[in-house]
């Protein structure tokens, strides 16, 4: 089971829209040995260039953020809890429909590059698709 939600604010400037969000995510996974539960709390900001086509707006932008991740495990063996910070940055695309003033429905998606610490201690970059609606 997994879920992710965000609340945020957006400021529309003449040529640019700036968005800030607080993000929470929850995920569970189970394999033959371990049950994993993950909580994620993060913040991100995005700069978007939107174009209006009547009630529809579409645009591209860049989003950067940082997430605090806590992982806990259920096992008969040994698997201590893990806590870490993950940085992310990547392009994002947005499609909005505004049927009335102050009301809009948006679809967005992109590709996040995640900066993560690997098991051997090195830093790595993982590409993960992102997206949602709101």
């Amino acid at each position, binding site marked *: 089971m997994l879920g992710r939600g965000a609340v945020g604010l957006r400021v529309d400037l003449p040529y640019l829209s700036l968005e800030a969000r607080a993000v929470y995510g929850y995920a569970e996974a189970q394999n033959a040995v371990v049950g994993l539960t993950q909580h994620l709390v993060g913040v991100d900001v995005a700069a978007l260039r939107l174009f209006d086509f009547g009630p529809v707006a579409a645009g591209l932008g860049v989003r950067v953020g940082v997430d605090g991740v806590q*992982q806990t495990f259920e096992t008969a063996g040994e698997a201590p809890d893990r806590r870490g910070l993950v940085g992310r940055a990547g392009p994002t695309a947005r499609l909005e429909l505004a049927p009335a003033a102050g009301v809009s429905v948006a679809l967005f998606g992109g590709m996040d590059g995640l900066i993560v610490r690997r098991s051997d201690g090195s830093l790595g970059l993982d590409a993960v698709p992102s997206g949602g609606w709101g």
Partner: protein
Amino acid sequence: MYRKPWITLPFLAAVLGCGDPLVGGAYRGRPLLALEGPIELPQGADFLAAAECEGDWFDCFDRQCDLDEDDFCPPCDDAFERCMRSSAARFDTGKLRLGLFWARPDEAGGSPSVQQFALVVASFPARYQLSLYAPPPAAVLQPGSAGGRYGLGLLLVYLDTDADDGFTAGRDPIVGGAPGGPCSTPPAGSMMRPWGASTPASTAWPSPRRATAGRGWPRPPPPTTAPWPSS
């Protein structure tokens, strides 16, 4: 001046990637036990192919013959011979599995052991690496004379003939094992010879024998491995 971003970015990356290394859904925890060693398989492709054909022989036996009367079933023996002669019966290494089994201490005469999940990397027919991420099930632990509790583990190589990624007693033939462990003999009633035994020259193929449930597993010799800590 232009070099500043190249100084700043690695520092920023180090901060954002700090903390414990995070893991994915395949994470199994810290290995409690890691083993590495050779695998011994009986010599000869025909011997291993026989294990493949025995699965069909058992199915045939169940359909056409009576276990109480005799271990031999001429129609099935004929089918076995045909299977061995067909090219499709040649041994397929893709069906080989190395499993960790724990001997049950609580039943006289032994019983089919408990297979435990372990991460195994094997390059048949040469070597294996095994990592165990959980202690043995409580049912297979017994008190040791020096305190603590221990379990007797057997590393056995079997053919996963029903492709369920697990050992099915009476169906998946045991074809080998990892030598040097506490078990020196294969399970009684198993369909194959002990690992390491050579195939008789006079009979290229072993005769299929019925694996009877009551005979179970042999009592293992005294443990030679360190006991598991008491829980």
